């Protein structure tokens, strides 16, 4: 066993050029895998972040006539304890209204939150580009697009006309840009009390939540549904509402796996063919060793060890190369604003797994040459010089 290892090492050392070539071949495979895998994971994560990062993952609404949740403090409490995966939770009062400016009018969506809680979900503060966060009743913030088209500035008052025809003046303290035009164009964000007052809603419209595992939102939603006790409550989650996005992501994942499998297969074929050639090259040596009494098993092990060592070498080089490629990509392929074109997501576990796969693949690849070796009869070598 140890002899097989030391012979394998010597064979690799004495065929340096070939050894380096195979190791490079493996490392390119590993690097491509790490690069593509990280790229696609990065794409998916950024897509999910922009899509649902600043929105409610699970929403409880009421299906009764008034569409309001009366006993909402209890619903909030029950939701919060229903699953440890729920990170943020906020009540919300929503309703339509319109504003007049110049000679036009625009429909808007009034959104009232417990502002500090709502902010954790929607990140208004982080995206407030002018003014300040509303501090008391009668204050609100609006989105960038709405501010521009209605020519509203910080500290202006605007008049909201509700569906029942009432007019309500509200003071704008800040302008935000969440990067989603439908939000920027229509939301008027204020506290629960103000929203309830404007819309004459007794209770709240919904409870909104974010969870730590976005892809588990559906199963967490089930836990919520199970725990909340109010009548007529309906629990929705983002996955049910975004089926087409999800199937897109799935397709992307599948094609990413396909690429990775093909890379693996080509690494496997490459290594096993090169190792098979190296068995032929070394058949004389194997013949001599067998004539001297090396056991078939140990002779085969020489090539298994070669495969293993080449795999480890290739994996180390490949991880270096892959990470180097990613670094280069994020350093040089930039948008005008200095952010990378594609945000790369470097996952240590995935990188480790790619390396491990290379080692495993090389070991498997060495089984064919090992088998050839085991069958080699020393007499063939001794007779044919």
């Amino acid at each position, binding site marked *: *066993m*140890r*002899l097989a290892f030391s012979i394998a090492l*010597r*064979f690799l*050392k*004495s065929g340096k050029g070939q050894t380096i070539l195979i190791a490079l071949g493996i490392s390119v495979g590993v690097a491509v895998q790490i690069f593509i895998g990280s790229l696609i994971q990065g794409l998916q994560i950024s897509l999910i972040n922009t899509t649902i990062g600043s929105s409610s993952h699970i929403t409880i609404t009421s299906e009764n006539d008034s569409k309001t949740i009366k006993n909402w403090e209890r619903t909030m409490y029950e939701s919060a304890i229903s699953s440890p995966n729920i990170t943020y939770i906020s009540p919300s009062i929503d309703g339509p209204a319109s504003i007049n400016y110049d000679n036009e009018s625009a429909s808007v969506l009034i959104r009232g939150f417990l502002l500090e809680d709502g902010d954790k979900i929607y990140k208004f503060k982080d995206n407030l580009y002018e003014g300040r966060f509303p501090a008391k009743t009668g204050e609100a913030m609006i989105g960038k697009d709405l501010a521009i088209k209605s020519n509203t500035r910080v500290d202006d008052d605007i008049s909201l006309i509700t569906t029942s025809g009432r007019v309500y003046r509200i003071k704008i303290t800040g302008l935000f840009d969440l990067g989603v035009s439908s939000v920027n164009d229509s939301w008027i964000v204020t506290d629960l009390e103000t929203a309830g007052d404007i819309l004459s809603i007794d209770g709240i419209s919904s409870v909104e939540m974010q969870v730590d595992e976005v892809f588990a939102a559906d199963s967490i939603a089930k836990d919520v549904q199970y725990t909340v006790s109010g009548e007529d409550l309906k629990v929705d989650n983002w996955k049910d509402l975004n089926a087409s996005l999800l199937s897109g992501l799935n397709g992307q994942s599948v094609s990413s796996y396909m690429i990775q499998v093909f890379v693996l297969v080509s690494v496997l074929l490459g290594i096993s063919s090169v190792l098979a050639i190296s068995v032929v090259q070394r058949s*004389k*040596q194997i*013949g*001599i*060793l*067998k*004539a*001297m*009494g*090396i*056991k*078939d098993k*140990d002779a085969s092990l020489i090539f298994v060890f070669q495969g293993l060592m080449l795999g480890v070498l290739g994996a180390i080089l490949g991880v270096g190369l892959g990470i180097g490629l990613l670094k280069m990509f994020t350093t040089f392929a930039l948008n005008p604003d200095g952010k990378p074109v594609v945000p790369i997501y470097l996952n240590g576990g995935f990188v480790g797994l790619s390396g491990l796969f290379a080692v495993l693949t090389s070991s498997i690849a060495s089984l064919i040459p090992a088998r050839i070796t085991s069958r080699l009869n*020393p*007499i063939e070598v*001794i*007779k044919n*010089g």
Partner: protein
Amino acid sequence: MGNIVELKNINKIFGEKIQTQVLFDINIAFEENTFNSIIGESGSGKSTMLNIMGTLDKPTSGEVYIGGKRTDTLNKEDLAVLRNQIIGFIFQFHYLLPEFTAKENVLMPYRIKNYKVPKEIDQWADELLNFVGLSKVANNKATNMSGGQQQRAAIARALINKPRIILADEPTGNLDSETTENVYSILRNINADFNTTFIIITHDQRIAEKTDRIVEVKDGKINLDVRKAEKY
């Protein structure tokens, strides 16, 4: 004296579709501690016979005994152990492992048996290298040695495990006459010092005449078997 190698009714046929019989009903035995030569025309079956004795090849029919033990029925594992410990091979083409130094080559049969080389075996390897006049090139890679040096290294290698029998197939086939003399005197000394049995195939009539027994193979049969009077 007991027989160290014995062939009983050995037949060897090569090929499946086109069959060529190379050995015909060979019966021969070699005693311990003797120095024997096998001669014969090219293609007469000498190497085939030697390879069967050395368990590298299997007879089509007949029995092979080494040290009184039947070997043609042993499995591959047991044969490997037998080749490693009882038999030493010297081939016509030197067959050193080119990736290893002379000394590493000499130690290889020992390391096949036992990976760790104890001090006394390391010294024994040095002694053998000295014995065949290779102390100076002990750490040269096999590829950096002359043909005669490689052949002598192969002889030292055949001896490292102190085998009871050495099978040599034209060990001086491609050496000049002075080196040939040199190699034979080494083999003779080993035979005297370590009581090793030698069976040597040679084309060289002068060398054959110096051995204790000459066996001539002709068309796959033992044609002549001459022993020197003083040895027997």
